[in-house]
């Protein structure tokens, strides 16, 4: 069982009550990866949202001029990935691999999450707003990186 106290340390769940956090916790599956494991692959279809419990992951994009994916950012404890496919239902926008042994993630299935948001629209309103803020934060990171 995922602790709701752990979920309080994840920004996309900021503003939810303890009861609402428990409903989110019930959707989480804990998965562990070793260093070098590919968690999601660019342009493939998958639908989980991931929360980093422990460890660091590398997000990388394929480019026409390079043989392998190019790293664009590292994400650490408390960060999320997979939110783009959750929002737009498209293919994975990047490849994500574990940079550390014992990289522990919480995975939430898109269909389960959308169903919960339909059942409790306050959860949906809060979390979707927080996901939008998270995407905005990442976009600003990329903008600053190009200065």
């Amino acid at each position: 069982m995922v602790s709701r106290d752990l979920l309080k340390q994840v920004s996309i769940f900021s503003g939810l009550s303890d009861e609402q956090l428990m409903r989110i916790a019930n959707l989480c599956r804990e998965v562990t990866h070793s260093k070098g494991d590919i968690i999601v692959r660019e342009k493939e279809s998958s639908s989980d949202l991931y929360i980093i419990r422990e460890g660091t992951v590398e997000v990388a994009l394929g480019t026409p001029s390079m043989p392998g994916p190019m790293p664009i950012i590292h994400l650490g404890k408390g960060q999320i990935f997979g939110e783009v496919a959750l929002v737009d239902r498209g293919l994975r926008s990047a490849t994500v691999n574990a940079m550390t042994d014992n990289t522990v993630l919480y995975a939430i299935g898109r269909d389960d999450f959308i169903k919960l948001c339909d059942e409790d629209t306050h959860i949906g309103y809060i979390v979707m707003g927080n996901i939008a803020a998270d995407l905005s934060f990442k976009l600003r990171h990329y903008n600053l990186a190009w200065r």
Partner: protein
Amino acid sequence: MIYQVSYVVIGGKHAGTIMNQEERPEVGERVEFAGETFEIIEVLEIIPPRGDFAYLHATCKPVEG
């Protein structure tokens, strides 16, 4: 308060990182990620805090030697 910090690295080829931490980063401090040490040269608060979370951007440079 939990600080969600995006670290952008100049003068190197590091991709940068985003991570949560309990202490606010300050200019002049050193920070370690991805097995390297960096010095913080700028801290920006572009997005206002939301709930218990503060959102900061920190520019840093690799520490030589």
